[in-house]
């Protein structure tokens, strides 16, 4: 993997993440009217935050190897995901994403990491803008409120937890989806609304009736077979105990393509 390429790619993201306060990222030049013409070369904070979320989710899923993944790293990434989700919940941006709920949109968001970092990402951003335009306005009104973006842990924790739980559920019970990553992202965003505490297995919970200790749940993919290297996407799209192989194969090509874009390997 080209490390230098990876670094170069996220340089734009770096400029945004130097200071975490949203205020600082919305400098005066950026037009937040929600029109395509207003978006300059530096992607908006929300887009960049979204791509960080996507990157983190991919990291969590791609950590399946023959050796148990590093629990510390997984916990830190999961905490980052939670933070982003909590912030997005506070913003109300979660609702907007759900409203704009086509599979295609999720796929675009997935690709956005790469597109954001290109200088001329207008074409791709064109697809995004309608999605974000409306809630940019909402966000603008929020800006009038207290600007400190402290991550509250109290009430919105449930939401992120369920997000991960449902993401994990996708992998665990693939007969419920068609093995389509973009579809699972949809379901993740949808079910964020559904804050039922009885939701299914979470990122770290013990799964299965298996007799061995699955505390290290991030390796929960191990329930059925030994994993190959970075086989995670293939795995939850075509696990050994499902019959929907025919559906999975075409989706698999999409998944490979997505992974390639993200991981630049």
């Amino acid at each position, binding site marked *: 993997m080209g490390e230098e390429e990876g670094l170069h790619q996220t340089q734009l993201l770096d400029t945004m993440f130097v*200071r975490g306060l949203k205020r600082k990222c919305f400098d005066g030049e950026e037009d937040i009217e929600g029109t395509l013409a207003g978006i300059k070369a530096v992607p908006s904070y929300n887009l960049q935050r979204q791509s960080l979320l996507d990157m983190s989710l991919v990291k969590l899923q791609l950590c399946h190897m023959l050796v148990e993944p590093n629990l510390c790293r997984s916990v830190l990434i999961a*905490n980052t995901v939670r933070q982003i989700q909590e912030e997005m919940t506070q913003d109300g941006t979660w609702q907007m994403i759900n409203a704009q709920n086509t599979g295609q949109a999720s796929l675009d968001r997935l690709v956005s990491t790469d597109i954001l970092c290109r200088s001329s990402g207008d074409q791709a951003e064109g697809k995004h803008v309608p999605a974000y335009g409306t809630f940019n306005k909402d966000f603008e009104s929020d800006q009038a409120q207290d600007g400190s973006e402290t991550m509250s842990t109290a009430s919105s924790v449930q939401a992120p937890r369920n997000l991960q739980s449902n993401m994990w559920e996708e992998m665990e019970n693939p007969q419920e989806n068609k093995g389509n990553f973009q579809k699972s992202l949809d379901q993740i965003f949808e079910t964020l609304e559904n804050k039922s505490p009885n939701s299914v297995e979470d990122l770290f*919970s013990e799964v299965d009736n298996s007799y061995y200790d699955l505390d290290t749940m991030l390796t929960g993919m191990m329930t059925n077979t030994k994993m190959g290297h970075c086989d995670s996407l293939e795995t939850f799209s075509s696990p050994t105990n499902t019959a929907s192989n025919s559906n999975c194969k075409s989706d698999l090509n999409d998944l490979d393509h997505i992974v390639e874009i993200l991981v630049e390997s």
Partner: protein
Amino acid sequence: FLPLILMCSNLSDIISTVEFNHTGELLATGDKGGRVVIFQREPESKNEPYNQGEYNVYSTFQSHEPEFDYLKSLEIEEKINKIKWLPQQNAAHSLLSTNDKTIKLWKITERDKRPEGYNLKDEEGKLKDLSTVTSLQVPVLKPMDLMVEVTPRRIFANGHTYHVNSISVNSDCETYMSADDLRINLWHLAITDRSFNIVDIKPANMEDLTEVITASEFHPHHCNLFVYSSSKGSLRLCDMRASALCDKHSKLYEEPEDPSNRSFFSEIISSVSDVKFSHSGRYMLTRDYLTVKVWDLNMETKPVETYQVHDYLRSKLCSLYENDCIFDKFECAWNGSDSVIMTGAYNNFFRMFDRNTKRDVTLEASRESSKPRAILKPRRVCVGGKRRKDDISVDSLDFTKKILHTAWHPTENIIAIAATNNLYIFQDKVNSEMH
């Protein structure tokens, strides 16, 4: 402090830990392939003053082998995570080495004499024909070539569900502790089938897991005290006299977050990758992604000193998150008098901070820039703007060349630096005494 390079040794695998013994005579390295290589310092001799103090290979052995956990369908890496020497109590040396799951006690002995003149067997060890024995002799010890023998004396297995990140020998010389991501166990050096769990931060519901143990160490003088660090940047000092299970800390050391530097990466970069007590026992040294901090045991609210290791990376955190470098675990070290602290960085750079003069230096461990006996040239990283000759710009740093493991001789100004496969040993010839 003007380091001269003493030695650069190319090992066959990536070095994963470096540790001097209590006298500094021996230096142990562990590698990714489960091997331990021990170096011994040549005794100083007046005949060859330039050879004094050089470290040469003393012994090499395979400590751990790769294993397979059949229940989980996972490999257990043979990589040596940590080595700790036991205080020497007789002619033999002993050390503990650990991989992710199993700790082993190794005994290192020398043999430089062997008995000759047995009555019942000949030189090759074959039994003599008794009819040829006409007189009795007393076997005598004759010198032989030095042979270093390493034997596994104890294997402490099945104590950990998660990956062991630290081991620490207690000052009582009878017990030691091993810490994994969620638990810390106390072992007796002579007992392998039992250990006591003294810290357990595993939540009842794994969904609630947000924090793991990253490092731990016994206090150098008080055998009841130990500290452990977490991925959220906190330190907990525990007293084993207080209760059997030390989940409740005696002291919690935590610095409040700086709100102006808050970002999505704040927690990750606050995660403590290493904690070391000072030799005096009064201070603790911690390393997180961008800084090293000195804590006074008596002050829990904030560190007494903070040193920036590579603050120029603060604007690169997203890239470093993407390529996983942000999860690199750097170690830190005190010098013998606790006046200088050292830690590694990227591009094969390592940094030293003098606590008294507040001066710091960046040095590079590489073959190109270090000839034997040459004095290391300080390096500088420039962050744009004015750039001097020989400066390195932040963007041309090599993030694959990371110095994670460093060690300082217990009494002298000799340091060991592990740079991937290479072990560098630097010595300060000018001041062989510590200041």
